């Protein structure tokens, strides 16, 4: 948790006021509990990650993915 906070403060600290830093510290602490639960959940080497969500109806089929086209004006997107 502390390392994440320090990374934020070192990269963006100049943009943040004291109240925002306090808020970030609280958020990081709250997030840590969720992370701890997530890390404690037993997973095996054989458990495949759902790298890109495919609902289970898709498992049997593997459609050939077409390359995504960059939309016109995409530079305006963040």
């Amino acid at each position, binding site marked *: 948790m502390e390392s994440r906070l320090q990374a*934020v403060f070192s990269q963006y600290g100049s943009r943040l006021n004291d109240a925002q830093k306090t808020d970030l510290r609280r958020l990081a602490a709250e997030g840590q509990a969720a992370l701890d639960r997530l890390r404690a959940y037993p997973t095996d080497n054989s458990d495949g990650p759902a790298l890109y969500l495919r609902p289970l109806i898709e498992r049997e089929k593997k459609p050939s993915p077409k390359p995504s086209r960059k939309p016109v004006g995409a530079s305006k997107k963040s």
Partner: protein
Amino acid sequence: MPGEEIFYLSVTELAKRIESKKLSPVELTQIYLDRSQKFGPRFNAYATLTPEIALEQAKAAEKEIQRGHYRGPLHGIPYAPKDLLAVKGIPTTWGAKPFANQVFEYNSTVIDHLKNVGAVMIGKASMIELAGGSGYRFASASLQGEAKNPWDPTCWTCGSSSGSGAIVAAGLAAFAIGTETWGSIICPSSFCGVSGLRPTYGRVSRYGAMALAPSMDKIGPMARSAEDCARIFAAIAGHDPKDRGTIAIDKAAFTYSPSVELRKLRVAWLHDAWKSFEGSAKPVAAAKAALKKIFGNMKEVALPVGPWEDAASLIVQVESASSFRSLIRSGKISELTDPLGQISGYLNEQYSAADYGQALKIREILQKRMDAIFESFDVLVAPSQPVPATPLSLNLETGLSFPDPLGAIGNLCGLPALSVPCGFTEKNLPIGLEFLAGAGDDIAAIQAARTFQQHTDWHKRHPRIH
């Protein structure tokens, strides 16, 4: 001003009148425009109204129908898409100040689909900034201001499809398009007393839609009934090579006919979706009793237990940090309205790839668990939310922070869900019922919700707007 009832007619009913030439699309569009101009600002429902586009599309629809070329049930029907769908040449603000002047030179696929079936775009619905992608603490987290609930303007519509909910509930358009990453169609549908469908992930193209968490973002209709949702879904569903998240052609497409042979659904009640019901216990109990009568031998089941919300949160946070990377790094994130939205992105950037990988493994495990449940049941039912619409001033971080395993599971697994009104609180605020089905089995959720609506009339009630 015509009688108020016309503004609350279903798409299905409006379509009958339009097809038989008893109702003019131009006149319908004009009265919806007048009503939207009059009442839209009261609810902060719109990001922008598009009267010129609307009347041009309505006139074209009318001309075609007069010539005998009727395109189907959305032809000449006014609607409003959420303001994160690109519409060529007009602002697409994503509800956020840093994008207030953003204009795309192309249409999103959903907008094109609706154009092709002759629907009439009346305006763009307001929304929570970045669809809540950087977090938010207050209902006011929107470039367009807090969306007020037509049932009680001191209450919120819920987000992030906040304007879409207000527009449908206030009868400002016949339907709206919303999006959901986690809760953003189901919650506003519940709070606003409308019917909203969150389709299976990948059935509706997101091309031209703002990305929040690309492995969880979905687009769906918000309307007056489950049947209306089905008709709209049929128009917008389908594989799209421009969105690599869409599923294959034969799985993505959706066709709907009310006369389709119904299958006998195995419906179960989720008894542990929520811990308690604040102010809505009575209508929830009545809805459950009604379901038992309608579906006969309705069993009770429990959701699988695990860190699903933690996994869903992490995935949303990490993917949103990627989606809004330039906004975060440039510091423009500080231009967002909400105090939480201004800073959360900084922290979201710091999660490790190992933790994200763990969340994805957990998602895979959960998908298999849910698939096993759907071996025994077609549809799971639970209240859409444990509370009715909340006050506008509520701190959402503390006041709307109850556990939401149902939302986490449904969205992590990309499952279809349909929320329909099922009663009212003593303060006359609507309560919603969620019908959840297996991946790809959207028709089961639609059929169950439609059957419920054939036996109840909650969806026909509407607020009085003066």
